[in-house]
Every structure is written in structure tokens, then in C-alpha cells.
């Protein structure tokens, strides 16, 4: 009786497993931002002078296109300092012309961990396309275990409609947060974003790990004579005013302390008057106009220190 049940169950599930296996193979063949960026930096690492790391605030917020082909934006949505450190570890030795690394110390950077948040599903991109050694939990190893619906949509989009998942420019800058696509209620997104970025219970382990990743990036850069620009990115008042003062203060103090090290600059642009309403896509992200402005501003700062223009 039980043998019959097991046999029938296996027969029932075999087509399902085969189907899922096919989906996995198909979806991995689709180019995406992670695979594109990894391949690009690998090919061009001897040309890159300015490297932008970090989360969506710099992915959409630093237009590396205006800095020329020697700049590259390696930031991704929800990317944490752990993966920024990983990039520097993997490519540090090969980035022979590197002069500046731009790293966000956003309001949430030091207290967030990709693995424990709502965005944990993005972890598979680092495992599959960046060969990050972290293979646990098992979901990190397969696309289909992170939203089969999305996989089906991507397969349909690529194989039947010719869409890739790449939404960045050749220099890695995110192209979708544009003025003409700005949501009508962009200002009101601030409160929700601030709430999302504020941690309720401070996890000191995550904080320690993140600070050690920043320090590790700084040390590796200093060893190569590369300048590190830590930036608290610009945000609109509806976001900035809703931030938890203690979490914000901790981020600023850490940034200022790290900037005491030689070769490190800390730039706090949270409510910088140079960024106006026209520069924002939503309350915590710049649009392409603001991104051009921020790219120039952050590199000019280094230009002043090093006495040589980057672009």
C-alpha cells in the first residue's frame, strides 16, 4: 500500500521536477545586471579609475556615464557592504588604475543585512552570478527557489519578447529612475521608506560586521593608494525628517570617525541644498539629473585632493 503511494507520488512529481530543472537552465542563460556587471568589470578592470559600490541610492544616484568609460558603477539594489567588500577583494589586485572608490554609508547601510531582510531573495544573484562563497540557505543556489513566477516572467520576456533583465548603461548606471517616470506621489514615499529603513531592534553583530567590511575596503584601498569617498546620499525632506535620530546619528558618527583615516573622505549630503525637488525620483532616490550632479560632486571632491581631473 505504502509502496504504491510512494511510487505514485514519485510519478506525479517527476514531470514537475523536470519542468523546474528546465526553467532553471533557461533562466540562467538570460543576461542580467549581475552577470553583466561581473563580466564587464572582469574585462575592463585594468581601465577603471572610479568604482562606485553600494545600494540603489548609488546605483540610480551616481551617473557613471558622465564620468566617462573609466568609471564603473558596481552598485545594485539592496546591495550591502558585505558584497561591496567582496567586489574589492575579488578585483582589488586587478584594478591597476583605480583611483577612487565611492561607497555609500546610507542611513541603513550599517544596520542592514541582505540575508535577514525582505530582500534576502537577491542573495542568489551573488551566489550564482558573482560566485560568492555563501551557499546557505539552499535558496541562494537556484533561481527557481526564489520566486518561480518571476522566473517564468523572465523566460517569457527574454525568449519570446527579446527583453533582457539589464536596466543599466554600459558603465553600470541604473537607467530606470528617470524624471519622466517619476511617480505622482513621489514625495509621500518618504515616510514609508524611512520606516522600512529603520531597524526596530539593533543587532550589534550586523553593525560590527558592516563596520568591519567598510574598514576592510578602506585598508585594501589604502594599500593601493586608492581614495575612498564615503557618502551619505541626498534624500528629500519627507524621508530625512522621518528618520530615527539615533540610528542616523550613529551612521554619521561612524562615517566621520572612519574619515579620520588617511585617504578617506566622508560627505554628508542628506539634506544638501544643492539637491532640489527636480533632482529626485522619489524621496530617497535621485533621478538622472540628480545622479549627474552627484557624480560630478563626488569626483570633484577627489579632484581637489589629488589635483587631477578624473574626466
Amino acid at each position: 500500500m505504502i509502496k504504491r503511494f510512494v511510487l505514485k507520488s514519485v510519478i506525479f512529481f517527476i514531470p514537475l521536477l523536470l519542468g523546474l530543472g528546465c526553467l532553471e537552465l533557461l533562466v540562467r542563460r538570460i543576461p542580467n545586471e549581475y552577470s553583466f556587471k561581473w563580466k564587464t568589470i572582469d574585462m575592463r578592470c585594468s581601465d577603471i579609475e572610479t568604482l562606485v559600490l553600494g545600494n540603489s541610492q548609488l546605483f540610480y544616484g551616481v551617473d557613471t556615464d558622465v564620468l566617462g568609460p573609466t568609471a564603473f558603477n558596481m552598485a545594485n539594489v539592496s546591495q550591502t557592504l558585505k558584497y561591496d567588500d567582496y567586489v574589492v577583494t575579488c578585483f582589488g589586485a586587478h584594478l591597476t588604475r583605480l583611483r577612487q572608490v565611492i561607497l555609500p554609508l546610507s542611513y541603513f547601510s550599517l544596520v542592514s543585512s541582505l540575508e535577514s531582510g525582505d530582500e534576502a531573495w537577491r542573495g542568489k544573484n551573488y551566489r550564482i552570478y558573482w560566485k560568492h562563497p555563501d551557499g546557505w540557505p539552499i535558496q541562494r543556489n537556484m533561481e527557481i527557489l526564489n520566486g518561480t513566477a518571476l522566473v517564468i516572467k523572465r523566460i517569457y520576456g527574454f525568449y519570446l519578447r527579446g527583453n533582457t533583465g539589464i536596466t543599466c548603461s554600459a558603465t553600470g548606471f541604473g537607467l530606470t529612475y528617470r524624471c519622466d517616470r517619476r511617480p505622482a506621489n513621489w514625495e509621500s514615499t518618504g515616510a514609508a521608506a524611512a520606516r522600512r529603513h529603520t531597524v526596530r531592534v539593533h543587532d550589534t553583530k550586523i553593525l560590527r560586521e558592516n563596520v568591519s567590511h567598510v574598514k576592510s575596503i578602506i585598508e585594501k584601498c589604502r594599500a593601493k593608494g586608492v581614495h575612498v569617498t564615503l557618502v551619505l546620499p541626498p534624500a528629500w525632506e519627507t524621508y530625512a525628517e522621518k528618520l530615527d535620530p539615533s540610528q542616523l546619528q550613529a551612521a554619521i558618527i561612524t562615517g566621520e570617525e572612519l574619515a579620520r583615516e588617511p585617504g578617506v573622505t566622508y560627505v554628508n549630503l542628506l539634506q544638501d541644498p544643492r539637491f532640489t525637488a527636480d533632482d529626485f525620483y522619489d524621496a530617497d532616490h535621485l533621478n538622472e539629473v540628480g545622479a549627474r550632479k552627484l557624480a560630478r560632486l563626488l569626483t570633484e571632491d577627489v579632484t581637489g585632493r589629488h589635483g587631477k581631473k578624473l574626466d
Partner: protein
Amino acid sequence: MLFNSLAFLIFLPVVFVLYWAVFNRTVAWRNAFILGISYYFYGSWDWRFLFLIAFVSGVCYLAGIKIEENERNKPWRQVWLTSACVICFGLVGVFKYFNFFIENFVAMSRALGCAQNVASLHIILPVGISFFTFQAMSYVIDVYRGQMRASRDWVAFFSYISYFPQLVAGPIERSTNLLPQFGVLQRFNYDEAADGLRQALWGFFKKIVIADNCAIIVNQVYANYESMSSRSLLFAAVLFAFQIYGDFSGYSDIAIGCSRLFGFRLMRNFANPYFSRDVAEFWRRWHISLSTWFRDYLYFPLGGSRCSRWKTVRNVFLMFGVSGFWHGANWTFIVWGLLNACYFLPGLLTGNNRRHTNCVAEGRLLPTVKEVFLMAGTFAATVFAWVFFRAESLSKAVDYLARMLTLSEKGTTKLVGSLYCSPTILLLLLLFFISVEWVQREKQHALWFNCMVMPAPIRWVAYYVVIAIIFAFGAAQQTFIYFQF
């Protein structure tokens, strides 16, 4: 370990094969195995709370034996019963309600002008504490009442308290139903196991497709309700009704279905509550294991409805108020409970609370116009009450309702679903869900088929369709709402 996680999908077949192939030879081996895997299942959240569940099991096991031993010594029986109650409810009180009482005490002191500085504690709520303590208490009370013999097999008893399919979110089993099943060796029943899988599959559909997709829009609206139009607020309020139903009844279906794979029958927890024609019927169909727990162990001992009118009113308010408070340490839950008491009372006092004990439109495909109106009215009242259940505070709930009922078009009307399930697709999925539940409303669960009548290929196509929908439209993994209770 969540039911809707990959870990559970690996855990279940492994446990199933080990159970039937290796351990189901003697009762003792089988129970020891169930105890081990149940503790592993619970410990995967936080192993420290295993001591808590073991402690509750130990206290109630001992209390049961002592109550039975003192059969002719009523004061001692009462001492053991009271001790077990104080310890079990005390633990729930500390873990779940300590901060609530402290915060309210401080607020009240401030209101009276004598400021108090009492620090609240950072207490982690053990998953499912309200479920397993209530299940343990039902045993002690049943032994005290003489409805149940005290268990002398501690492994069986500990397995009964920690039985993994229903450990963290019910159904809250009665000792009279579940505990005797740990005393006999189960035989594998093909039809039971196959139907259990079908029931679990429908549970996954309810949780992953219905509840989790509704949650995306509901969370969005409740987080920003000040900037939403009345239409959006109403839409989210209705969606929350389906979210909580899909979430909780989905869990129950998975629990009951998985349990049937191991030969254990758990009680039914939901019986299509949104097809109820009045609130009394709704409460006979919603979270049946908890409603009947409060009825048997609180309402009836207080006199139920067989006492003076005033006492009946008091009993109803007490039962619903406590039931609301059981859900969480927040005034919103208490108001939700009391509101339901207000809905329930008129029927009870006029003797109309048992008008609808059968299934709606029994033997017919479609309901009458009157039945449609009755169901819609009951559903509307329920949706209204759910706003209190979902809101973060009483003031926010009242504000939400006020904005919803002003019928203002000001504010956001465009809601964003998940990447693969827009609000329109979600409405179509809800339509599919309601249709299937309606057609199958007289069955134990929505995927119940008469295998003698329906050929296997058609059944398999139906299963593949449900699985395909889960894969195509399933939302990202979210925890079950009732875990927090």
C-alpha cells in the same frame, strides 16, 4: 521551519518515509520518533523555547496524574488544577502580556497624575505559545472533569503537546480526540494519505497565492492609509478578510493534511466561514478549535446562556473579549472581540442564533437572493471588525474606518501588487478561489474528489493546475499571521 519553506518540503517526505518504514513498528518507537521530530521542528525557530514546551508538558502531565490519584480528595484535585492553570496561563501572561500590562499601568498612572517609571522588558514571544498551552490545559481540565483518563505514558503525552503539524498554529486539539490516537499503532491508509496531500495542496494555494498576494496590497494600504482614497481603503479591508482566512485556514489545511499522512486525524478548524448567513453561524465555522475551547472551558462553566439574561450578556462579552485578547496584547484585539460579541448577542437573546446550522444552499448550486443578502451582510460586518484586528492601534483603526466611510476620492487609488500578480489578477484569483470553495462547500476541503466518480487523469490535471497557479502567482515567502499569537 515554515510550512511554505523549502526546508519543510524536504523535511516532510524524509519524516514520512522514516515514520512508515522504520519507526511505526511499536507505539513506543513511533511516539519517540514523533517527539524527536516535533522538537526538531520547533527548535528550528529557537531551541531555547524547547525547555518551555517541555516544562509545560511536564507540569500538565504531572497535574493529570495527581488529579487522578486524588480522585476522592477534591481540595487536592483543585490545588493541582489551579497550579497547572496558574503556571500555564502565567507563562502566557509573562511572555505575551507582560509589556502590555506594564505599558497600560504606566499610561494609567500618568493619567492619574502619578508618573511611574517602570521599564518594559524585551521579551521574545515563543512561537505558538497560546496554542500549545491551551492544548495542555484542555487535557488537565478534561482529567479534572473525569472526561479523560490521565496519561501514564510521558512520551505519548509530550508528543501530544508538541505534535509538529499543529504545534505552532493549531488546530488546538482536545485531549479526548488526539491523545488516544497516540496510544494505538496507525496503519497506513492510502485514501487518507492521498486526501491529506490534496488538502495540504489546497492549504498551500490559500496561503501562497491568496493570503500572501493580498498581504502585499493590504500592507501597502495600512502603512500609508492617510494618503489612500476611500475606495483603496475599502478594497484593502476586504482583501484583509481574504488574507487572514487564506493564511490561517491555509495553515490548518496543511496541518490537517500532513497529519493525515501519518495516520492522525485532527479536528476541522474552518468550514467556509464567509458563506455564513449570520454571525452565530460564522463563529461556528471560523477557528472552530478556539471557539469551541472557549465555549467548553469558559462560556459553559460561567453558565452559558442557561442563566439570567444579564449573566448571559456578561458571559458572551467575557468569552469574546478573552478570545480577542488571546490573539494579542493590544486593545485592538479586545475591541475586535467585543465588537463580535455585539454582533452575536442579538441572535442569542432572540433565540435565533441556531437558525443556520446546515450548509448554505444545501443540495443546490446557487443560493437564493435572500441567502446572498444574508451572506453579504455577515461578510460586511466581519470586514468592519477585521479593521480593528489589523490596525496597529485603536486610534488608527477608527481613523481608517472614518476615512473609508467618508467615500472620498482624494488620495491614492492606484495600488501596486507584486511583480507577477497585479490587483486585477488578484481579483481573478479570488474569483477562482471563491468559486472552488463554493462548489465544494459541502465537502471537508475544496480539493476533495470522489475518486470512484472522477477519473485519475482529470484529477491529476486539476492538481497540476493548482500547482501551476501556485508557481505562477505565488508571492514571496511570508510568515503565517497566527504564529504571533
